[in-house]
């Protein structure tokens, strides 16, 4: 059951005896429960926040490429005339040609594609492809291809879950069954969108965290899957290769870093 109050959504887990609060604006979670007759509200770490502790070398290379591309484009447009080498990156950032702008565009694209999946999950309506411009259209094509191949029947969509035991929370894109594939397994799906449709290593840890929390929330998946849709309309699927223990190790490191930073 879901309730909304002052920008927060509340998800009741009656069997487990707690309520999970999610605030979309800040992407933060709180656990509400009764402890010895008194209500408590405990902040929870988000899974994506935990994973920020990991080094992502590919991200560095990407950021470098974004900056270089932005500078080159501006140079060709004549916008960098008289700008010193040291200051070029500031102009790139100011004119929205650097990493931040690309990251924001990627986030918007990701949100849009997730909404398409959510809408399909809630209504069963296939997306109208001409409603989307390139390059988002390519990602939606990839999503349609996957939907056609897996024909998922949703059990829960955009479902917040949490681990009371380990104090973290996250939001699962889709719990679904795919009877069209001849099995009745419950699949946990996490959707990724990036130009090449790559499934990055840390994504496995993310879904392992969801699996662990899902068990505590009464949504134990038989299979944990990653889906990446690409700009060229293709998609890639992979089972999760990480375990709950793998994620808990990262969670511990994240807490150590937070403690040391204080």
């Amino acid at each position: 059951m879901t309730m909304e109050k002052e920008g927060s959504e509340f998800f009741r887990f009656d069997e487990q005896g707690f309520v999970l609060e999610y605030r979309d604006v800040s992407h933060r979670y709180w656990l509400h429960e009764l402890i010895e007759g008194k209500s408590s509200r405990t902040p929870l770490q988000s899974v994506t926040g935990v994973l920020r502790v990991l080094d992502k070398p590919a991200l560095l290379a990407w950021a470098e490429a974004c900056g270089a591309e932005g500078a080159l484009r501006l140079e060709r447009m004549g916008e960098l005339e008289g700008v010193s080498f040291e200051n070029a990156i500031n102009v790139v950032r100011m004119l929205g040609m650097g990493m931040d702008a690309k990251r924001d565009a990627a986030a918007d694209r990701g949100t849009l594609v997730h909404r398409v999946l959510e809408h399909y999950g809630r209504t069963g309506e296939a997306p109208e492809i001409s409603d989307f411009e390139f390059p988002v259209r390519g990602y939606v094509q990839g999503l349609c291809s996957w939907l056609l191949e897996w024909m998922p029947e949703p059990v829960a969509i955009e479902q917040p879950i949490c681990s009371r035991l380990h104090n973290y929370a996250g939001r699962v894109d889709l719990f679904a069954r795919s009877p069209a594939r001849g099995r009745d397994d419950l699949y946990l799906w996490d959707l990724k969108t990036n130009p090449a449709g790559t499934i990055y290593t840390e994504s496995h840890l993310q879904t392992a965290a969801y699996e662990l929390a899902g068990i505590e929330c009464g949504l134990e998946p038989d299979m944990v899957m990653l889906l990446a849709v690409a700009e060229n309309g293709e998609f890639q699927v992979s089972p999760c290769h990480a375990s709950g223990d793998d994620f808990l190790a990262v969670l511990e490191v994240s807490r150590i870093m937070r403690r040391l930073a204080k």
Partner: protein
Amino acid sequence: MGDVKMDSNGAEGDKPELWAALLALQAEALAIQRDAEGQIQNRKYKYATLTALNEKMLPRLAHYGLLWTTKPIRDEDGEHALAYRMLHVASGERETGIMGLGVDTQATPQMIGSAITYMRRYSFMAILNVVPVETDDDGAKVPRAAAERKLTERRRTNALSKLLARFDSLQTVELFLGSIGVTTRSEEWTDSDLLKMKRGLEKRGEKK
């Protein structure tokens, strides 16, 4: 400008993947805007810059798995020339050629650079059969390829019947159309869309 020399790239039948990708690209009938103005003596003219070409065409080439490269070289006679290559990355099938720049061996680097840019634009437009247009804000001025003409009602009905026979529900038909980038609004279907449907169904058949 200079001569065009085609490399020996094999017979056309040897490159089915490359031709299919180029066919799909051409079916989009993309129009390139003339975005810059030049002048020869008293005559002013508009042309499509390399930037306009790249911005419009490169994402579509990438969509179909095509890589376009050019390289300034000296041809067999020692003249400045531009070698180009259109590569279908997945299959390795390619179309290559050499276009002479038409500048003499005493030309300054600036003259050579200008000729290279000129030939990069024209080789690209020639190989892709791209036509620059005056403006894209008036649909009537944009040439519409035959492939983009709307289907007759009879052909639309036939196509829809075939799809419904192939898939078990309207929902799966719509997902199939989405997966190949074709609108579910059948009144907007074109020959290009029919081609995409045919190729999409073939692909699904191959998977099974």
